């Protein structure tokens, strides 16, 4: 009884505090302000990205241009995650685990059915195409480098699951990943040298809603897309091909 009373009092206190907090937040009000006379940050972004940068997708303008340095950090985090996964998953071999592998090997080594293999063959190039489309049009339509890269990695996952012998070309992957990272940093350094600040966009921006517009933004997103795609593919490759280390 006493416990229940305490619980009710606590719930009452928490509810009271929540109502007080939420009553101070103007929910449902227009907090952007007028676009002609910007007072807030969001109005500034909404004005600036179509007018000055000629980028239709405001989120892309924020992610790649206004906060480009942050995005560089995100790509680095992804790279570190892939490296960490690779180093952790190769571990010493257990006897128990070895027996498990022997017991299930026959079942798991069965080939996938011909339906799945044919379907994967049809869908794989389409998925690659969709991913490339998404990251090339990152400044025009929803989506961008990260999403397009994830779609490409899904295509590779499909192939890795349905074909037992499917292997990605590690040399090409490593080169693509390194070149994409280098390209991103190189664009940043170009901005630093030519315009005085890291990842500064060029003065030339083109027209709104054109494929080639927005200065360096599409180029950066293409680099991000390639990098994310290769990294996620490597992660999936590692996860599917865990081999116990020989003693």
């Amino acid at each position, binding site marked *: 009884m006493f416990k229940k009373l305490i619980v009710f009092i606590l719930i009452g206190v928490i509810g009271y505090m929540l109502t007080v907090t939420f009553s101070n937040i103007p929910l449902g009000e227009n907090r952007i302000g007028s676009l002609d006379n910007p007072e807030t940050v969001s109005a500034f972004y909404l004005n600036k990205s179509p007018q000055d940068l000629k980028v239709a997708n405001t989120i892309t303008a924020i992610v790649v241009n206004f906060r480009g340095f942050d995005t560089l950090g995100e790509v680095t985090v992804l790279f570190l995650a892939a490296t960490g996964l690779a180093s952790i998953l190769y571990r010493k071999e257990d006897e128990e685990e070895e027996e498990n592998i022997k017991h299930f090997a*026959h*079942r*798991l080594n*069965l080939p996938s*059915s011909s*339906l*799945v293999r044919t*379907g994967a063959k049809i*869908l794989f190039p389409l998925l690659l195409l969709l991913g490339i489309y998404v990251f090339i049009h990152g400044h025009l339509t929803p989506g961008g480098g990260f999403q397009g890269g994830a779609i490409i990695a899904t295509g590779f996952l499909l192939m890795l699951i349905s074909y037992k012998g499917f292997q990605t070309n590690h040399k090409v992957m490593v080169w693509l990943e390194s070149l994409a990272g280098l390209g991103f940093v190189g664009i940043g350094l170009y901005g630093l040298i030519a315009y005085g600040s890291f990842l500064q966009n060029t003065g030339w921006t083109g027209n709104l809603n054109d494929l080639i517009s927005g200065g360096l933004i599409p180029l950066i997103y293409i680099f991000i897309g390639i990098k994310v795609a290769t990294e996620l593919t490597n992660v999936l490759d590692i996860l599917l091909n865990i081999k116990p280390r020989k003693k």
Partner: protein
Amino acid sequence: MEIIQEILKYIGLAFIVMGSIFLFLGALGIYRMPDLYNRLQAGTKASTLGAMSVVLGVGFIQPDWLVKLIIIIVFIGIANPLSSHALARASYRAGIKPYFKKEIDAYGKAVEKQLKKIKKKLQNLNE
């Protein structure tokens, strides 16, 4: 022209209603059926047809998008049955038994044959 657009709009709405009925029946089947295989069957058939007709209905209402929507329909038609086929096979191989007592088990016999072949190969390799 406006009359044709109006007619197309009502055809599209009919398709959307039909599709949502099928999607609802699929969800009901997933909730109601006793085991994984029955649920897969209910879910796949109903949701493939439901999603296809909803997308087609949108295509009737907005004829500008029709080409893209037909590509989406083809994609659903390939991917949805394939994925549930793969799921069903994988769950059979993982050892999930059907709920009802089975009398006919053609795939089980095929798996046994394949397993025997692989075991023989492994034995030959070991020797």
